[in-house]
């Protein structure tokens, strides 16, 4: 599994017909920056937008990264704003707060108080329980949650890590 990307960018619009996505990819490639397309949604109708989310693994030279991001911004690609995950307490044992985030299979990280936390354990249809004192997160089966445990709700501050076959 690859290290988490230090920058995630996104762009939307008529990015395929306009070749804007191709231009963004070529620009990243020419800058020598490793990247991966995490998400690509293609608009179905003529006026539908397409959307792409791309992870970047720059080599650590901040000025080169700034230059690359400025260039990508011309094409409408902007860094994804990172915000803390939203937590809510479980109202009772085995009961979830509304809109709790139910995790499927792929590995996940949570952004909380300025840092990405990796999630202990994997599991399908589990919820993400965060210990706000130890800054640890783990996936827990729904029926085992305890009253007062902090559970992630919504999708803000969550990212799914890419798994690369060749790494």
């Amino acid at each position, binding site marked *: 599994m690859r290290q988490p990307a230090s920058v995630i960018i996104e762009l*939307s*619009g*008529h990015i395929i*017909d*306009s*070749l*804007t996505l*191709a*231009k963004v990819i070529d620009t990243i490639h020419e800058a020598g920056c490793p990247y991966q397309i995490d998400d690509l949604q293609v608009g179905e109708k*003529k*006026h539908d*937008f397409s959307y792409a989310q791309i992870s970047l693994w720059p080599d650590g030279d901040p000025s080169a990264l700034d230059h690359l991001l400025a260039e990508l911004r*011309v*094409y*409408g690609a902007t860094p994804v704003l990172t915000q803390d995950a939203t937590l809510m307490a479980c109202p009772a044992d085995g009961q979830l707060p509304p809109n709790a985030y139910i995790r499927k299979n792929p590995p996940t990280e949570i952004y909380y108080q300025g840092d990405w936390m990796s999630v202990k354990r994997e599991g399908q249809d589990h919820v993400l329980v965060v210990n706000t004192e130890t800054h640890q997160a783990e996936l827990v089966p729904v029926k085992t949650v305890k009253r007062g445990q902090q559970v992630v709700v919504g999708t803000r501050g969550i990212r799914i890590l890419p798994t690369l076959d060749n790494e």
Partner: protein
Amino acid sequence: MSKPQILMSPPDTFTVSYAINPWMKEGAVNWDLAQRQWESLYKAITEQAGAEVKLMPAVEGLPDLVFTANAAFVYQDTAIIAHYKHVERQGEEPHCQTWFKENGYRVVTLPQGIYFEGAGDALIWNGRVFAGYKTRTDILSHQVITQETSLPVLSMELIDPRFYHIDVCICPLDRDYFIYYPGAFDEYGLRVIEANIPQNRLIPVTAEEAGLFACNAVNINDTVIFNKGSDRLAKVLSDRRFKVIQLDMSEFLKSGGSTKCLTLRVA
């Protein structure tokens, strides 16, 4: 059928008092000659092309208000008002907004920090918008065009600072013809043009013609009006059954605009 309606603004306060494109040279304009050239365009539009002209009053201190093409992007009853990149032109925005409100349009404004220069950078060809970005217009504004009009937008990077708006390097015409200057676009832009427009509708112009603002043409039905000096293009268009009118627009070229920049199709 009702006449096409064109928005113009008289050149009462027109001058070149700042330089925000490579064509502009302060103090170069012959004001009297500019008045006569604007009048000749007005007459060609109303008397020869058969359109009706609406007038937006000139405003002291806003010399570029005369270039109404930049005021807004208009589609049906929606007017997306320009948000100019240069502070020198931002004073035009409230006047344009007022005109469109008073004339019954649904007015849309851009979010702060997203620049967009109206029909100077967004032209409709066959149900889709060819929209320029980078020099003056932010590509993010193109999403607003689609959100407000449901028209698909083809975003085209403008690579030559002399051709700073897309309306100085392309001109969609009646019957799906399309004048363009290939040198204003990169390989991606040229591929977009070639992928969307049939070869037999494309009318490329030379660098010399582009420099005479041949692409900055007004097309009303079968009439095409542009700055004088592009006789080869005039013949190409005549051969395709267009009625060509060439006018001397020398004083407006000194500000980086020609016939199209001085007009905005509003209905």
